[in-house]
């Protein structure tokens, strides 16, 4: 949200609208969240009030980013997100449990594969009908689903070898 204020002062309502448009995807911001975040940023000196429209109430206030806020955004942007290692995976657990209990792990893999491909197809058609920002977000999701699928393929190819390790 702080980053969005760098493009100019905004009302709380305006912030929510831009946020939802750009980043909301399937999870729009709640108003309560907008105002609680703004008051925290105010407290920390990262934003300041920049004018109030007649009528009063929090929705009439405009907020602007401070120099400290700009520094904060700059630092945050270049701090890398910690790469997710996905070492705790429900898919892995299911495959192992299927093998341990002597079930057909192929069924687990196939069901997962079908679900993944369905999602990928939905994301692809959304991408085809969308603008460049839709493409960015959908491609990010698609590459992650593809990574899962490659793991499913590899695991399927290793099932006979794996089976021996988990029985008994």
């Amino acid at each position: 949200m702080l980053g969005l204020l760098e493009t100019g002062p905004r009302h709380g309502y305006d912030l929510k609208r831009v946020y939802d448009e750009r980043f909301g995807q399937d999870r729009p911001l709640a108003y309560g969240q907008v105002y609680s975040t703004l008051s925290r940023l105010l407290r920390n000196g990262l934003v300041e009030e920049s004018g109030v429209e007649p009528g009063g109430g929090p929705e009439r206030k405009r907020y602007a980013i401070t120099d400290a806020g700009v520094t904060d955004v700059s630092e945050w942007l270049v701090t890398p997100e910690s790469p997710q290692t996905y070492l705790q995976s429900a898919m892995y657990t299911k495959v192992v449990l299927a093998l341990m209990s002597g079930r057909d792990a192929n069924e687990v893999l196939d069901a997962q594969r079908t679900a993944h491909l369905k999602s990928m197809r939905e994301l692809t058609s959304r991408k085809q009908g969308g603008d460049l920002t839709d493409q960015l977000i959908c491609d990010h999701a698609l590459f992650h689903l593809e990574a899962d699928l490659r793991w499913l393929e590899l695991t399927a190819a290793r099932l006979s070898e794996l089976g021996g390790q988990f029985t008994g």
Partner: protein
Amino acid sequence: MAERDDDTLLVGSELRKSFGPTPALDGAGLMVRRGEIVAVMGPSGSGKSTLLHCLAGIVAPDSGTVTFDGQDLAAMRDRDRSALRRGAFGFVFQFGQLVPELSCVENVALPMRLGGTRRKQAEAKALEWMARLEVDHLGGKRPGEVSGGQAQRVAIARALVTEPKVVFADEPTGALDSFNGEQVMRLLVDSARETGASVVLVTHEARVAAYSDREVVVRDGRTRQVELVS
């Protein structure tokens, strides 16, 4: 196997083919509807390309049948089958499919020329398709003088120039990076949708398969339908 209906265009059933002791196809089947894009997936060596070749009448199966628009390919005379391949089918492969001695526009015009269309007319049509795939500026170049992504667009233009009923694409993005692969897929799918062509798309990449309406998995020469359109 999916239900057969009026929209059925291409059907392969119980296809078997061996090149040696182990069968490449061991009872594979596939049904393609008009305008439908079907992805054929599966591990390397599972028989995807062999299935595509049988469906396209390039390879004759040892047993099983392929019917296109109600006609049994095996029952056709060689000459008619060649004419069908030239006129009703289009092909896109991973690489090495363009004739190196011909310019790009001559390559695209080739299927029409082989079908008896006059040079001027064929090349005009070829340039139209090349423009749609944004490679018309490369018309005078030889395939060796263009990039892999450009060559692939030229190949798609060639596959579509006769406005075929079915486009057979075997790993069409296999030699391309993600960005070019996406663009090539988008162009292929958009062009196919526009002309109402069906596409049989062999790929092991899920992101590429996600452009299809439905996918079929080949394992050890046998097909399994993953998901049927309702």
